[in-house]
Each structure stands twice: as structure tokens, then as C-alpha cells.
């Protein structure tokens, strides 16, 4: 790369442990990635891989105790570890917003939809009640909900509409970075298509950077520029869409694709990954994928592989691959 890219987010060796009942959950074991301005990275992995923990870390919202965090996170070049709680407040919402998986965790059932959005706007901008409600209605229209329905309460909305309200709230202060944690998992595919379309349009309109957390490789193919495959708290493969989909390298990523039905041949048998992700309190000493990997050798059992560059931006953490 000749030119320096402008990064919205730089994460360096992020580790998160949760200390519970004399056990240590190793949720993140040294995650590093950079997100260029206006780009979208997909974080893909199974339940418990550490995707949400990564998102919460960027907002400095890991509960402590039990959480213990180390590593550096820079938001627009600024190390958030050095910021006061007050400065962090202004980052949340103004610079970084997060959409949570379950819309109801972010919505208050006792307040009208427009008042909730207006409150968020007033928290981050100097404006009066009336003006903020007007802005809230504009936001609703933008996510495809008629502004006059803002006077309704969340329970009067369908799941897809609620999720769009949450997105409107997350976008209310036009953040630089949007973290979307499985924003469409709870939705029907037709509604999911609407929401993804909308996110894509808004992203373009505001030149937002985005972390898309998902377990759906189909969504990744549609929305992301780069992809990080997360396994047991570690990025095991990183690359552009082409790298990940057309030059799949890590045995875990290969296994993920093999687990999906072949749409061109329905009779083709699925090739699941045997076994389960390891217990994060008892991670294997060597490669964390070793117990499920068809290529595992003695070295894999004793030595944990780190990410190496295998061409362009494509990185893999696996002893089968050499730098170059």
C-alpha cells in the first residue's frame, strides 16, 4: 500500500477476560484490525466467539467487574483508553453508535417512539424539545416509517418496524462509526432485505464506517468490504470479500462454507464441522480449532498460530500457511 489510509477505528491486541466464580472466561484473546473510513467490516463467528464483546469494547461498555480489558482502541486516531468517562459519553452516540440484536433492549415500552428518538437527539445536540421531535420524525421517514406514526408506542410496531426505529435512534446523531450487532437476525427475510437496503443507502449517504456483526455469510457478501472470521476470541482469517469467499484459507472458514446448503444442488450432503467450539474457560494450549480440525498435527496441539499475511490483505492464523 503506497498511500496512508484514514482509519476510523484501529484495534490493537484487544484482550477481554471475564472473571466469574474463580474461573476466567477468555472472551477475546488478542484481536487486532483496522477499519478504513467509509468501509464496512464483517465480524463473523458462532455464538460465544466474542463478536458482541468486541463491539462493546469499542464503546468502552464492558461491565467491570467481571470484565478485564487490555489492548488499545483508537477511534479516529484517539486512544479511548485515555479518555475520561465524560469524554467517552460524547463519543458514544456522537461518534460511535451501536445497534443491538434485540430491539427491545434499546426501546422504552412506556414512551412514544418519537420522544425516545428526540431524547437521544437532545442528549447530543443543543436543541429544544419541539425541534428535536421534528428531527425525530424526519429520522423515522428516513427509515421508511411515516412520521405521524411517531406518536405510537413500541408495542404497536412489528418486529421489523421496531428494528428500524432502533436504527433511526442509532443514526440520530449521524455517527462516524456504526456497530450493528446482528441487526436483522430476528427479522423475516423480506423485512431483512428492506433493512439491509436501508443501511446500505444510509451508509453511502453519510460515508459511515461500519462493523457488521453477523453469522450469516450471505449478509456479509452483500454488505461488507472486508471480513474477519472470529473463532474462540481470535481472528483466524481476515481479508477482502474476494479473499474470504473465493480463496478461503483457514480450515474453520472452509468448514463454515461446507455447513451451508448448496443452492445449486439440493441433494449435496452438508459437510458439518464436527464437535463444538472450546469452552472459553479451558482453551486448548495450541490452535483453538485443533479439536475440530481435519488437518491438525502435533504442532497444532502445542503451538498457537498467529495471523500471517498470505498475499494482499489476506491474513490467516493456521500452521498450514506461511508468510508470503
Amino acid at each position: 500500500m503506497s498511500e496512508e489510509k484514514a482509519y476510523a477505528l484501529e484495534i490493537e491486541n484487544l484482550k477481554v477476560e471475564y472473571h466469574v466464580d474463580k474461573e476466567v472466561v477468555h472472551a477475546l484473546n488478542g484481536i487486532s484490525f483496522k477499519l478504513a473510513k467509509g468501509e464496512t467490516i464483517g465480524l463473523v463467528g458462532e455464538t460465544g466467539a466474542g463478536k458482541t464483546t468486541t463491539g462493546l469494547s469499542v464503546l468502552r461498555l464492558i461491565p467491570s467487574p467481571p470484565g478485564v480489558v487490555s489492548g488499545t482502541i483508537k477511534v479516529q486516531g484517539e486512544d479511548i483508553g485515555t479518555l475520561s468517562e465524560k469524554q467517552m459519553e460524547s463519543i458514544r452516540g456522537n461518534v460511535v453508535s451501536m445497534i443491538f440484536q434485540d430491539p427491545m433492549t434499546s426501546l422504552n415500552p412506556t414512551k412514544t417512539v418519537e420522544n425516545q428518538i428526540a431524547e437521544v437527539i437532545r442528549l447530543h445536540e443543543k436543541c429544544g424539545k419541539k425541534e428535536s421531535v421534528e428531527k425525530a420524525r424526519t429520522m423515522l421517514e428516513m427509515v421508511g416509517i411515516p412520521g405521524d406514526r411517531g406518536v405510537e408506542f413500541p408495542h404497536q410496531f412489528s418486529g421489523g418496524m421496531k428494528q428500524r426505529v432502533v436504527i433511526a435512534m442509532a443514526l440520530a446523531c449521524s455517527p462516524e462509526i456504526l456497530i450493528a450487532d446482528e441487526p436483522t437476525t430476528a427479522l423475516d427475510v423480506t423485512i431483512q432485505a428492506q433493512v439491509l437496503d436501508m443501511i446500505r443507502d444510509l451508509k453511502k449517504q453519510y460515508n459511515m464506517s461500519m462493523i457488521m456483526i453477523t453469522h450469516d455469510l450471505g449478509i456479509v457478501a452483500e454488505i461488507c468490504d472486508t471480513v474477519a472470521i472470529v473463532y474462540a476470541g481470535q481472528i483466524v482469517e481476515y481479508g477482502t470479500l474476494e479473499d474470504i469467499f473465493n480463496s478461503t484459507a483457514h480450515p474453520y472458514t472452509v468448514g463454515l462454507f461446507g455447513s451451508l446448503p448448496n443452492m445449486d444442488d439440493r441433494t449435496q450432503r452438508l459437510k458439518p464441522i464436527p464437535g463444538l467450539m472450546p469452552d472459553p474457560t479451558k482453551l486448548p494450549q495450541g490452535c483453538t480449532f485443533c479439536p475440530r480440525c481435519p488437518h491438525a498435527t502435533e504442532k497444532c496441539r502445542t503451538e498457537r498460530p498467529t495471523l500471517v499475511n498470505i498475499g494482499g490483505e489476506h491474513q490467516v492464523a493456521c500452521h498450514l500457511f506461511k508468510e508470503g
Partner: protein
Amino acid sequence: MSDVLLDVKNVKKYFKTPKGILHAVDDVTFSINRGETLGVVGESGCGKSTTGRVVLRLLEPTEGSIILDGENISKLSEAKLRSKRKEMQMIFQDPLASLDPRKTVGQIIEEPLRIHNIISSSKDRQKRVLELMETVGLAQRYYSTYPHELDGGRRQRIGIARALSVNPKFIVCDEPVSALDVSIQAQILNLLEDLQKQMGLTYMFITHDLSVVHHFSDNIAVMYLGKIIELAPSDELFAAPTHPYTQALLSAIPVPKLENRRERIILKGEITSPINLPKACRFASRCIYATEQCLHGEPELKEVAPGHKVACYRAESTDKT
């Protein structure tokens, strides 16, 4: 020769609600051949689970007949139904919610054997439970553990072993893999496929995951607001979706490939309420092809090609040559 195991005719299930009568299942007709799978898809609330529960008579149908292996079960008395229940079982999406948390894995799988008095000696029952655990790929060491101590995939295996314990002919699988990670999902789907082959099982497979339903089903029924609006062999449905709703649904699947991306049909408009339904096509409020005719009558499910049925005026009139 087709050998029909389940024949469902004009089944309706209405619920009384404070706002009026809710048409959860509104006149569905379909059949499933022995050893085959019918996939049922459609958006949340369209009546998939209700159809499954009515077919098993876990809910009383408001109208219609359900014939399982030649016997009309829609009219059976409670006592007769009880013995018929051995032939039809259900597997649920969230095994944890459907499994008694105070019972061990062994006790859960054993229960139907006891209730239906299939094996009377407790020693033989234990032997059978261990056999079943092996069949579904659960290690014997879990015999005395509790379901909440296990992961989602193993819990689903318990649900499957329990359903198999009574040697059923027919199983309704209601979103059996929706709560599982893809790698585990593939393990369970392969297991269900193997069991079907070994035991000649017939499945009704309810899901909202379209790539899974395509892989898993011989035929697929697409439901919309309580009605089957398209019914076709799996490959035919994906190659030639004909109802405008099916077309939108299939176009919305996020495909995990970079090539051959499809043009998306984004649906607009409000979903019609299942209460106080107008006498019109239920999809008209969101259909880009809706005409006057669609607002004044309800299209019926009609055959447009061999084995391929569609409920849409436009499909009836389009000459498919």
C-alpha cells in the same frame, strides 16, 4: 404409485381474540407421501406452527379433515387419539423450553416409553434409552445430566431422541435448527436426513430459512396469512417461483456467493391483518401486480404445471409456454 401418508383437506383454525376472529390457518389442503418431506415456509405469524399443531391435533381444527395413514384423526375421541399419538411426534425450535428442567436426559427420553406403556420393565427401558441416545449421537455419559447443562445442539438431539422413542411414522419439525450455529445446524440436518432414510420417516419441516428448506424438502408449501399461496417440488419452486410473494421471498435470500447476484424485489406496503380479512387477495396490499380483480375476490390454489400450484389471478392468466 404415490403412497400418501398424510392427507390434509380444507383445514381451518380460527382464534377468538379481543379484536375479532383471527384466521391463523385459513383453509389449507396438502398431502405428504410416505418417506418424504414437505417444507413449510412463510413470514412470522403466517400460520406455520399452528398448521403443524393442528395436524397433530395438539390444537383442535376449526374445520377440515386430517387423514394419517388412512385414518381420519380430526374426529377421533381423546382415548383413541392417545394411542394414535405414538405415530406422530413433534420436534421444537427451542428444546430447552420444551424439556422439563427437573428431569435428566435419561428421564426425558424415557418418559414417552413409560406414558405409552411401550416398554414396561425399567431395565429394558434404560437399554432402549441408551440405544436411542446412540442413534442421535449423544454420548452415554450425558444420561444423568440435565438439559440446561448442555449446548443447543445436544439439547436438540435430546428432543429428537424423545420424539423417536415411540417409533413414529410422522414428525412435525418446527424450526428445529433455527437457534443453532451453522456448523451445528448442519450436524442436526444430516442426522434428521439419516433417520428419515433408516426409518422411513415422513416430515413436515417448518422453517423460515429458505436455503435450508430447499435442501431438506421434496416439496415446499409457501404460506401467507394463513393460506398456502404456492406449493411445488423444491427445485421447481426455486427455478420457477410464480406467486409474486414467493418471488419476493426468494429474491430476498442473502446468497453467500460473490457471483450471480440476483436482483432483489423489495416489498412495500402494509401487511394485511389476519383479523377481519377483506374478501380480496391477501397479498394485494403489497403486490406490484394487483388489479381490480385482486381486490374483489380471493384466488384459489390452482395447478399451473404438474405438481405446481399457485393462488394468484395473474398466474392463472399468464400463458406459460
